């Protein structure tokens, strides 16, 4: 196998080239006769499945003039531009009162950034680094909240101190701290409480009551209580602007099959509802191990399924005025795109339109980032700006795009 020169474009094609070079294995052996019970169903006999792995982003952000903006497709009347670049591993976004866009990151960078608009030019400052999977951020009353799998801290008066950030104040340090699905998405709800998930510490397991839930707490770290049960791994949620109901995306289990289960968008109509994990997936099927003796009818069904292994990350209800009326109070959801699926898809932003009865349907919105079964970029979060435009972060390229309408 010829070793290729590492370039960003070449990196993306590496796994495909290898897949083609390797000889296909012979016919599958009769699995049930030779495999121990635990191994049955694993994707051993499938050469393509044997090549699936988490898709890595390089440790170097893509240069501004190499970003795939020309590949991005949007509905008529919309346009997209590069808003900021050189933000390694850009994930979650929050808007400060004075216009600062705070950006989180995860495995690759471990940093929190502040992006400041200076007369049309964006300046990127690193305000915290060497953090442990600091995916969860929220801005509230001048303070930036940062959640890792272990703790929640607060940077007071941050927008006035971007060049010399204050020492963070510990708000809560009792998160379980697991790496698997321990990274957080956090948001303060209409009730003034901070909502945070504790995901399942596994691909599939029946975890203790510390896990698989969305909780809320007072802003001083007191009064932790469970709001949602049977959740596997949410990395995005928001409240409907009219009904005040919580909606959340949920990443479903891996390795069941190419096309199941389907990732979920769920609607919470009262506290304490159970959304099925690990017993029922997608509201459609019981788990082959944990689902025995269970029934999907005992759990709340998803409001919408959004495709197998689609990887729903950040989502926001659209409350701006710039976009056409049909998007008012619709959800924009970033789908990161699957790694554990032979055919790559998603890596997009979808619009989820919800009628008065709460029925949801999904439409493509920002697409075009999958080419030759490779990701050109991977949306990770969305942010509605004051002018109604929509920012979209892309952790694969370390960039933020701006989508606007008209003019």
């Amino acid at each position: 196998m010829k070793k290729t020169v590492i370039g960003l474009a070449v990196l993306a094609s590496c796994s495909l080239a290898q897949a083609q070079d390797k000889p296909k294995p012979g016919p599958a052996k009769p699995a049930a006769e030779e495999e121990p019970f635990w191994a049955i169903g694993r994707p051993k006999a499938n050469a393509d499945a044997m090549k699936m792995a988490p898709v890595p982003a390089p440790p170097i952000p893509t240069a501004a003039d190499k970003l795939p903006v020309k590949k991005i497709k949007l509905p008529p009347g919309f346009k997209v531009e590069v808003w900021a670049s050189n933000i390694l591993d850009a994930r979650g976004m929050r808007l400060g009162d004075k216009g600062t866009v705070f950006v989180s990151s995860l495995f690759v960078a471990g940093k929190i950034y502040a992006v400041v608009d200076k007369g049309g030019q964006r300046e990127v400052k690193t305000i915290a680094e060497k953090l442990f999977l600091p995916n969860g951020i929220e801005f509230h009353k001048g303070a930036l909240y940062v959640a890792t799998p272990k703790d929640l801290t607060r940077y007071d008066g941050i927008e006035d101190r971007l060049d010399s950030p204050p020492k963070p104040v510990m708000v809560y340090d009792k998160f379980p701290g697991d790496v698997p699905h321990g990274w957080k998405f956090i948001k303060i709800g209409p009730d003034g409480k901070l909502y945070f998930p504790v995901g399942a510490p596994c691909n599939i397991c029946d975890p203790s009551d510390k896990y698989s839930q969305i909780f809320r707490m007072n802003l001083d770290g007191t009064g932790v209580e469970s709001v949602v049960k049977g959740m596997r791994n949410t990395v995005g949620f928001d409240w409907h602007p009219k009904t005040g109901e919580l909606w959340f995306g949920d990443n479903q289990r891996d390795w069941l099959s190419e096309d199941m289960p389907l990732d979920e968008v769920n609607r919470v109509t009262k506290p304490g509802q159970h959304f099925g994990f690990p017993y029922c997936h997608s509201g459609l099927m019981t788990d082959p191990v944990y689902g025995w003796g269970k029934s999907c009818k005992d759990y709340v069904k998803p409001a919408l399924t959004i495709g197998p292994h689609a990887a729903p990350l950040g989502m926001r209800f659209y409350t701006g005025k710039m976009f056409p009326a049909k998007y008012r109070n619709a959800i924009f959801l970033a789908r990161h795109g699957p790694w554990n699926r032979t055919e790559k898809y998603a890596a997009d932003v979808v619009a989820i339109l919800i009628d008065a009865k709460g029925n949801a349907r999904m439409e493509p919105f920002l697409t075009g980032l999958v080419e030759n079964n490779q990701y050109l970029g991977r949306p990770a979060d969305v942010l509605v700006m004051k002018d109604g435009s929509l920012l979209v972060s892309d952790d694969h390229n370390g960039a933020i795009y701006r989508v606007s309408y008209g003019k």
Partner: protein
Amino acid sequence: MTTTGRFTGCPTASRFWIGAALLLAAPPVLSQSIEKRAELCFVCHGAQGRSSTPLVPSLAGQPAFYVMAQLFLFRDERRGTAPPGMYDAARRLTDGDLRGFGEHFARLKPPGPPAAKPDPQRFARGRALAEEHHCPVCHNPDYSGREQMPRLANQREDYLFKALRDYKSGNRVPYGRGMEEVVAPLTEREFADLAHYLAYFR
């Protein structure tokens, strides 16, 4: 951290002093070719990147992306309880250096299996665990690795054990997701069997 702390993991005093001397000579070395500069790495990581140093991995035949990603984590000082020498060594590397070392090590001939025979029971247990936990899906059926996922075949057993344990304890944060779910349910004994199987893989 004193200079002498850098090579405590290396096998002999003479090798240590060679390494220290080379490292102190860093400014002129930086202008040299990647191949020349890599000789400093081999003081600990073994001749042509095939390590005979306890707990120090072989680099030969590692995927270029894996080397680049790990050097990046060292440069950022986020590689957990790694030998401090690596943080010093990586601090001044440029993005071009990360790519250059990655490509260079990827071209070197990887180590073969140890001359000794494996313990058949541990080898069998390790193989079963590797299959159960989908190791070949990411690391390739021949454990040659690809992209951010390292070559495991014939890596040092003590290093493999340490790496698995560090992933589980959180001492080592993986580059991108995947390993965190894999190691979570595994025990120390299972790590030992996996490391044995992979070190002797043939």
